[in-house]
């Protein structure tokens, strides 16, 4: 018992103090991983913010975007043109989703819309596999995947690039939501569909825009994750990694997605490295959820989520 307590409460901290360079490397690794999770979480936040729908298909959208991009590159399309074409495909997909899935379900319960996105997930996975094949594909868009050492700390260039990209994307989206007319309209639609319609906000256009933006975010996430693991079916599973980020950061906050990502990323890396060996390792996945649920005990709406007060 004493040994266990020592392993939990003393040894990890002694270890951190004894190897500060390694501790810094764990922290940096956590920050980078967290920003990668944020990239996926952002797509969820955008759609939830604008429509109150938890888009179960966000992971499948990441997969579909990456498959399209790498499929075009493999067929000899230059990278820049492939990016433009993939963006066009994701915008077209948004249009189809708005026409076929969302429009018939206006004013339905959110759970109905949620179920529709589950159907969309299976469609996108199957359609993507049918069009582009199931093979693992290499995605090389010129981002180097090598490491360099600064003050004894190893830093991966690809992860650093992904971190910078995430930070820029979040900044752009935050400005978009807070400072533009469309952003304000998006927030109005999120608050109440019918009220937004009554003051002349075009609901269908707003949905189309927000799904398009989520599609573009999916492209960025697909590029970063695809460069890390190859483009393959498993990309759609990264949605699972962003769920604790959403729980923690709140479903409606863009900065929340990034702060949540950082806390989850750093938390799970520290948990795995310093406490994982006590239980045989592989605690990274569930530890992230434990961390998120612990936060929920104190802030049920997440760190940055909107507190919902309903009068009955």
């Amino acid at each position, binding site marked *: 018992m004493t040994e266990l307590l020592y392993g939990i409460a003393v040894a990890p901290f002694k270890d951190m103090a004894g190897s500060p360079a390694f501790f810094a490397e764990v922290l940096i690794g956590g920050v980078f991983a967290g920003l990668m999770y944020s990239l996926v979480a952002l797509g969820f936040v955008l759609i939830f913010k604008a429509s109150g729908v938890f888009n179960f298909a966000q992971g499948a959208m990441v997969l579909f975007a990456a498959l399209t991009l790498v499929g075009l590159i493999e067929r000899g399309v230059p990278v820049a043109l492939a990016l433009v074409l993939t963006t066009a495909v994701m915008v077209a997909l948004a249009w189809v989703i708005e026409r076929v899935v969302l429009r018939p379900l206006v004013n339905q319960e959110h759970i109905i819309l949620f179920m529709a996105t589950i159907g969309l997930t299976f469609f996108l996975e199957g359609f993507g596999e049918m069009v582009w094949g199931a093979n693992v594909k290499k995605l090389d868009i010129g981002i180097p995947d090598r490491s360099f050492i600064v003050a004894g700390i190893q830093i*991966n260039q690809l992860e650093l690039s992904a971190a910078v990209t995430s930070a820029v994307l979040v900044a752009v989206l935050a400005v978009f939501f807070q400072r533009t007319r469309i952003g304000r309209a998006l927030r109005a639609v999120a608050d109440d569909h019918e009220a937004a319609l009554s003051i002349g906000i075009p609901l269908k256009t707003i949905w189309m825009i927000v799904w398009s933006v989520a599609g573009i975010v999916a492209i960025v996430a697909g590029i970063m994750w695809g460069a*890390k693991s190859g483009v*393959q079916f498993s990309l759609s599973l990264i949605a699972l990694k962003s769920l604790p980020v959403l729980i923690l950061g709140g479903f409606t906050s863009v900065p929340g997605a990034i702060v949540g990502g950082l806390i989850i990323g750093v938390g799970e890396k520290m948990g795995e490295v310093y406490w994982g060996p006590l239980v045989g390792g592989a605690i990274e996945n569930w530890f992230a959820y434990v961390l998120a649920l612990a936060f929920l005990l104190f802030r049920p709406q997440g760190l940055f989520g909107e507190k919902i007060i309903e009068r009955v």
Partner: protein
Amino acid sequence: MTLKTLMSGALAAALVAGPMAAAAPAQPKEMFIPLLVYRTGPYAPSGIPIANGFVDYFTLLNERDGGINGVKLTWEECETQYKTDLGIECYEKLKGKGPTGAAVVNPYSTGITYQLIPKASVDKVPVFSMGYGMTAAADGRWFPWVFSFPTTYWSQASAVIRYMAQQEGGMDKLRGKKIVHIFHNSPYGKEANPTLETLARQMGFELTLLAVDHPGQEQGATWLQVRRINPDWIFMSGWGVMNQVAVKEAASKGFKMDHFIGNWWSANESDVVPAGDGAKGYKGATFHAPGTNFKVHADLFKFVYDKGKGGGNKDAVGEALYNRGLVNAMLSAEAIRTAMTKYGNKPLTGEQVRWGMENLNLTEQRLEQLGVKGFTHPIKVTCEDHEGNGPVLIQQWDGKKWTIVSDWISPMRDVVRAKIETAAVEEGKKLGYAMRDCAKEK
């Protein structure tokens, strides 16, 4: 009713039934093999080449030889997506098909194998988990219906350790070295751990076990620990995206790739492609050669692909996992052929095929006749030993293709067999089995 009426009726019935009896179809001269495949889902990149290798070899036998001794092979694919529940559903759906039922079932998943083991003796369908599944079942005295030849995860682990020792200059040279086993956090991934722990104690190397949770897309913490340990060798029991990420991580962290060895589920083309040039030098264990430089491949092109009957893309013939499926189909077919020496050249039941599997003796001469000399190792299965001999090869990725870089490496039978026998007693008793006396069956 008079006797005359009865006789007339009987005669009339005989006149009607006679031609019908003559016209009744004879039992078709074919045998059915269920194929549990995963061509969709996250593991499809591995499942597709395996399934194609299987189907192509059976097609080759039918097209070139008219089946096995005149008995055509038939099969039906059922999609499992590598999920245990779907696998069981597929097995139940297919086990009774064909004129004599399923001849043999290849589960292609350790999870499905574990679920099928208790069913095998009841349904009388042998389970062939070639190089995977429950290692303890290699003791045929306890598990008469389960076969894992030509080798097992435990033999593989010991052979890989022997290879590492050879590279270091001798079996005693691993003392004090640091070896990390990165494994998929599942029963499959953990299979090698007890063997590695035993060998670490015996040989004096420092072993660290690092688990990676499914699916393994994010392995930052694992590779931070690898960097801290700075191991001399890494052995990996991975699966799916875990492999691709691990190979990329090792390359990007600057680990010596020729000191990184994957097991035979971690060394396919799809595992190394995403890392590009970074994967050069990465090694993998195998029990058959890669590539298409064998007569069997020439026959596959001639009799299957050139006739437009190939299961997949012609360019993918010879990939590591394609050849895995090919070997599996070839061993299944040879077991059926062996069974025919006892039961005759006719469609056989699963029970009869089980005898063929247990008496399989694939000699060097027979391998040459099959057009696979040098492609895989001779195998002799016995009542006691359902694993065969268990030697392993090491292949290395050169940036474009896998190349064999070792001789056949014998597993440490003294360590592995003793562990198998102990585990077989434990696992067999869990299932209520009793040990059979093989002497009585000879």
